[in-house]
């Protein structure tokens, strides 16, 4: 399985990679723009990502905008199944949470700091790990 971590902080990328690399082949993107590019390249390679961990506050293109572009690509090119996206962010305001699920069709939402137990609980809900 492949996962993409979109995170602008070096330490955040390092920690999340360490959590995921036993289950996934992990790529990293340092902003939303790179995340969209990585998503498109993975599809072009015929090896799309199964999971994206998406930070929201990132330079160039924020996580919600990037997710919107990814969903638009999926819709336009009829790419199925949709990639499962877990928001990993310091933002916890109501509008952002709701927008992530409704507009971005996020599969889950974790407020930083991301702890391994919480991450794996979300991965379990998404069907990536069993109890």
């Amino acid at each position: 399985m492949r996962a993409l971590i979109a995170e602008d902080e070096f330490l955040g990328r390092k920690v999340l990679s360490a959590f995921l690399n036993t289950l996934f082949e992990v790529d990293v993107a340092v902003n939303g723009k790179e995340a969209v590019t990585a998503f498109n390249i993975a599809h072009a390679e015929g090896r799309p990502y199964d999971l994206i961990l998406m930070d929201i506050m990132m330079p160039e293109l924020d996580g919600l905008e990037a997710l919107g572009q990814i969903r638009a690509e999926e819709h336009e090119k009829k790419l199925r199944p949709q990639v499962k996206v877990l928001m990993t962010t310091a933002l916890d305001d109501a509008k952002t949470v709701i927008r992530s699920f409704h507009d971005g069709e996020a599969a889950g939402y974790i407020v930083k700091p991301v702890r391994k137990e919480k991450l794996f609980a979300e991965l379990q809900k998404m069907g990536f790990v069993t109890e």
Partner: protein
Amino acid sequence: MSDALTEEFFAEVSDKYYPQVLEGLEHLGAGDVAGGIEILSRPLHTIKGVTGFMPGFESASGFTHKVESFLKKLQAGSLPHSPDNISLAAHGVNSIFAVIEQIRDLGAPDQGEMDAVTEVLEAAGGGNASAAGPAGASCLLVEQEQNRAILRVTAPRIHRKHQRDQIVGAIIAQPQETPVVLDVSQVKTFGASAWEDISALAGHWSISVRGLAGAVRETFHAAGMDAVMPLPPAEAAPGEAS
């Protein structure tokens, strides 16, 4: 934050998701199953996701996931688009709103009702075939009371063909001059097909219904049964009694 999220969430439910869900249910009711489920999927996904993130609402998230699973089976064609399944889907969707409102207003959902809906969805979806009772098991008792035949339905859920056949058979067994009272006070869910079967007899026997409540009342009215089967005055909503 959670109070603000709850407030924002219910504002969105009222302004956005509920109208979307009503539109989806209208499509379902009109036979456009794929279109209806497509419309339902976005608001239900949002309710599942956001309630999973709201302290105290986690059970609503799990419940919504189960209703979504049933809808996905219908959408994929792994379940037939029968009137019973469409009715169950609509009931499941309506129950989501009941659950989130109960948690908001009372602090907890009606666990019994939530379990009952889950059970019947799983039974219809092939996950728990025994929930509606084994085929051949009796689902009603027939009693005579003041020149009336009381058909007391004893099974909690009436969805299967053998149950419908038993009820129809019990009505047909009565002399046509004997009024028949269908007592559904012990029933939790009653499929639209069962109501339709009974309505076909309503012109030939004098059939009335008592003990309507909850989901049974919903499917009774949704099937238009109030036009063909009278309710006792105490059971009818104001202006409804004939």
